[in-house]
């Protein structure tokens, strides 16, 4: 019986970089995917409450016309497809695969590029996400303590908190490093 080794898994999912992975076209695609992802995320986040509101409307003369629903559904579908496609492209690119395998078998330039990318990611977290999360936590704390009963403690770590946390984790763990890599690496021509 053949046992699948870690080395063979690594070769399959995170093979060595090829010249084509750093070509101008490949780097350009990475840049586009990162731009699409970061543009689509807030659009989707803004559309969802709108859909929620529209579906919650009762029948009445003042309701928006039906084509508005259709337009919103279409916009949301297109944004979702763009979001998922860019996410898939970023995570399936060999750059990301190589970054994920750690320093083992990585070349010195790869290790250096990876360290810089993760360092950038941490700096962004340190300077933006941590203060924002802190502020949100504080605001929620004040809200729970000041204006509602203690029963609201149950919703302190409600679904919104976990959705935001998941989004933040995705952003930190793969989006920021790959984006940093895409926008700072100069393409390498094949000789």
């Amino acid at each position, binding site marked *: 019986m053949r046992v699948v080794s870690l080395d063979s898994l690594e070769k399959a999912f995170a093979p*060595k*970089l090829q*010249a084509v992975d*750093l070509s101008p076209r490949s780097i350009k695609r990475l840049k586009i995917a990162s731009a699409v992802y970061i543009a689509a995320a807030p659009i989707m986040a803004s559309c969802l409450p709108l859909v929620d509101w529209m579906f919650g409307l009762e029948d009445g003369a003042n309701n928006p016309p039906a084509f508005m629903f259709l337009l919103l559904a279409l916009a949301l579908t297109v944004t979702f497809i763009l979001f998922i496609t860019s996410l898939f492209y970023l995570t399936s690119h060999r750059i990301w695969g190589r970054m994920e395998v750690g320093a083992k078998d990585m*070349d*010195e*330039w*790869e290790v*250096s590029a990876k360290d810089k990318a993760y360092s950038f990611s941490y700096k962004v977290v340190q300077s933006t996400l941590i203060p924002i999360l802190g502020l949100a936590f504080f605001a929620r704390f004040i809200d729970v303590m000041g204006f509602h009963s203690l029963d609201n403690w149950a919703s302190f770590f409600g679904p919104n908190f976990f959705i935001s946390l998941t989004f933040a984790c995705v952003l930190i763990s793969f989006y920021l490093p790959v984006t940093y890599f895409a926008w700072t690496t*100069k393409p*390498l021509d094949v*000789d």
Partner: protein
Amino acid sequence: MIYNRVKLLRVEKGLSRKDLADAVGVNFQTIGYLERGDYNASLELAFKLADYFGLRVDQIFSPRPFKTLSEQLADQAAE
């Protein structure tokens, strides 16, 4: 910034980046970025390259720009 003569020496030997990379045990992109001056080699790689080309490290890497061939020839003529 550390200047190097890696590209010159590689082309002189008729090697591709991949050939040189395989010879010194790195990936092709390290040689590519090194030649372009976008990456500074580790001391280990610098010694491996020096060993491979049969030169001293300071003959391949320098903190100052290397003289061009015409400048070198002019210097020789002046001596």
